[in-house]
């Protein structure tokens, strides 16, 4: 069975916010059931096993970015480097799963080139974070989010409210948004469409 490749910009010990803790809770038990690979930002490029998961860390190539939109573009270049290596090492992947908009572009690039289905977990959006799209920077982030959401095969959210928000504000087809409580059992069931 080819692995599910998770792409994220944070995972313990590299902790920025709650995302790394959420993934730290769900992914290790999931890795005991299906082959799982993690691609994550780190201090330098390298492959190791963390919490029983084969992990491809990618170092940050470009240190200076004027703002978060530009940062996300170059971060995803690093994530593409790590995820491409992971895909070639495994001889392919059954599914790509990106977490949050910051690491979604890498998932989109890889899904398009390798024809692998892409799932994006959406924890928040520029609209929920900034409350309103009033600056050019917010517009730029919103447009990248929208670009990624529309190219994903499925989106995962934690609440019906977020699902309504994505369909209303990002024109996402409601049929491709799944509301999942954050447990590895739920995720495993969700993966059955692609992972057998």
């Amino acid at each position, binding site marked *: 069975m080819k692995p599910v490749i998770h792409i994220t910009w944070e995972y313990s010990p590299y902790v920025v916010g709650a995302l790394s803790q959420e993934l730290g809770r769900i992914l290790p038990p999931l890795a005991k059931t299906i082959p799982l690979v993690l691609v994550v930002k780190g201090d330098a490029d390298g492959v190791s096993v963390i919490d029983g998961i084969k992990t491809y860390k990618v170092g940050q190539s470009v240190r*200076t970015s004027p703002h978060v939109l530009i940062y996300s573009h170059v971060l995803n270049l690093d994530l593409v480097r790590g995820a491409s290596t992971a895909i*070639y090492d495994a001889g392919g992947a059954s599914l790509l799963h990106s977490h949050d908009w910051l690491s979604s572009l890498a998932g989109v*690039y890889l899904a398009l080139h390798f024809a692998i289905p892409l799932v994006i977990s959406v924890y928040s959006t520029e609209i929920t974070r900034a409350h309103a799209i009033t600056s050019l920077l917010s*517009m730029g982030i919103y*447009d*990248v989010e929208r670009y990624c959401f529309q190219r994903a095969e499925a989106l995962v959210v934690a609440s019906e409210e977020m699902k309504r928000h994505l369909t209303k504000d990002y024109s996402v087809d409601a049929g491709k948004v799944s509301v999942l409580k954050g447990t590895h059992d739920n995720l495993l069931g969700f993966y059955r469409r692609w992972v057998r």
Partner: protein
Amino acid sequence: MRVLMISWEYPPHVVGGLGRHVFHLSKTLVAKGINVKVITFTDGSSPAEDRMNGVEVVRVNPYSLRYPDFISWIHGLNMLMVERAASMDDFDIIHVHDWLTAPSGIAVKHITRRPLIATIHSTETGRRGGLRNDHERHIHELEWLLSYEAWGIICCSHYMLREVSTNLGCPRDKIAVIPNGYEQACLGSPAPLNRRNYAEDSEKIVLYVGRLVHEKGPHLLVEAASKLRRWDLKYLIVGDGAMRPYLVDMTRRLGVADKVYFLGHVPDGELSALYHRASVAVFPSLYEPFGIVALEAMGAGAPVIVSGVGGLDEIVQHGHNGLKFIPGSSDSLAYNLNWMMSDGALRERCIRNARQTLGRFSWGAAADDTINVYKRVLGEYEGGAWKPTF
């Protein structure tokens, strides 16, 4: 051999020398039997798919998204270029130009496991004379990343080789120097021109062609004009840029406003005619990776005076095919300008020898050298283990 060329500018969307370079190189490579596909920019006014001189051109439109600044715009353009590359036929090698298409080239390299070649036309440090803010530092770091990720680097002059190897820490054995080509026909035939629209019959024309930005040194020519005080000279400034209001004010301040005429951008035919009518063409750059304008002037039979900097320094031999002045010195420029305008034998010698100089710069030779770089890199790639595994 199949080449995926990625460039942010390509006709009809040409911003500077890079677009012309990619156009001439691509069509000459095709003429030599190389399969070239170009991914480039469109604003919607040119077709998304096109074939020009045997080159397959596909264009992406970044205006479907919004951006807070130019660097974000460039990253958005590259994002769409990576997407477009996914639906194209296979290729053997990827060739990008400058930091502007570095992100797409690097992403496609890792995804497809095909070798990446980069032509570095100039660097941010060179263009800005230093790195003073996060935008400039970001571009510099992208340039470093490109020079690191590329299997081979092409520069247009030995000056640029030194700059890339020192500023970007790139090993010299990765870098090949391939001068740009020159085509007599690139500016087209001279358009009919009434000389009296530009200068009095008694005035000789001193021509400047270039963007009006500090690195091109137009202020040095205005300073030299005020120091020279030769009322038989008329200075025609072709080109536009952020320095224009400053330069116009400078001509008033220095008392040469009636001798310096700002023409802005002019069509190629008019520019060709101006080169033919010019008594001398002056290129006072403080930074110039190559200097194609000097070749255009030589081709039109105008004697040239250039600053001894960058690629210009390598094209011109002082007193043989033109004159060189000390970079940044308007005194030195004024001295050499006076010499050129006063010495008929020198002018004739420079014009004659300049025609021979042009023979060193052809797109055919540039394409041959580029193919040799492709072959060397593909040879190393074939002998290595870094390839797609499925």
